[in-house]
């Protein structure tokens, strides 16, 4: 399994990005119900690993941070979920 995706919140972030072109930080914060600091730290790890990309901009003088899934992150997610499913099959 993928070390980075063993964290439930990081797995949730990648799942949220899977069907989206991009997602804003505020939307991830709302969807995953995590504190801003905690979410920011997990996002940082995923960005550093190349699983997601971060884009920062100012829109109407307000900061807007968007995240998108990379092909590396998508591949890692698919492999990780397959292994989770295998684990469940083995134990059932």
């Amino acid at each position, binding site marked *: *399994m993928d*070390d980075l995706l*063993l964290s*439930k919140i990081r*797995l*949730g972030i990648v*799942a*949220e990005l*899977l*069907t*989206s*072109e*991009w*997602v*804003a930080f*505020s*939307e991830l914060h709302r*969807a995953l119900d995590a504190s801003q600091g905690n979410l920011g730290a997990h996002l940082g790890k995923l960005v550093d690993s190349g699983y997601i990309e971060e884009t920062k901009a100012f*829109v*109407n003088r307000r900061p807007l941070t968007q995240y998108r899934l990379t092909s590396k992150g998508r591949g890692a997610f698919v492999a990780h*979920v397959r292994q*989770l*499913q295998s*684990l*469940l099959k083995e*134990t*059932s």
Partner: protein
Amino acid sequence: MDEQLNAAQARDHIEMVARILEESQQRLCAGGEFFVVWGLFGAFVTLLGHFVASRALPSQALWAGLVALIAAIAFSIRRGRILRVESERGSLLQREFFNVLWITIGMGFVANLAVFNIFRGIASAAIWNFADAIVLFYIGMHGNRRAQVAGIAVVVSLVVANFTSGDVGAYVLAAGVFAGYCGFGVAELLSRD
């Protein structure tokens, strides 16, 4: 690595992923204003073409169609940019929808301007209805019943126009695209939270 995650945790993670993916399969949000504008454009162009073909208007009046097309495209681009800034998530499904929308509009445009010897008169107008029906059924495929009904209305207008005389056929086509696109657009706008 398996020892770091037991079966219960794995099930919990899988269930969370399934829940997130299920919620993300939201119905395609089409943007009602786009359909109102393109419905008005489609009906206008159909009637304009008919009046020019029947010599009720001079051929120079066709330029009004080009102006209307540019206005509709300008509106769509501007509104699309605003919506992108206002929204907090860009759905892949939404992007696919806009790809379908632009391809059908583009093909309608090509058929009207570059293939006019094949698609003469009412056939030229029918192309817009044909393209519009594809867009509506694409949205309908993703669970939007209003789009399905609107798509059927546009197809019915095509069939009815096929069995009526040229004059009446043009009005039927215009009514079909107006009812299908504008009707769907207004319904979407009214259903917004």
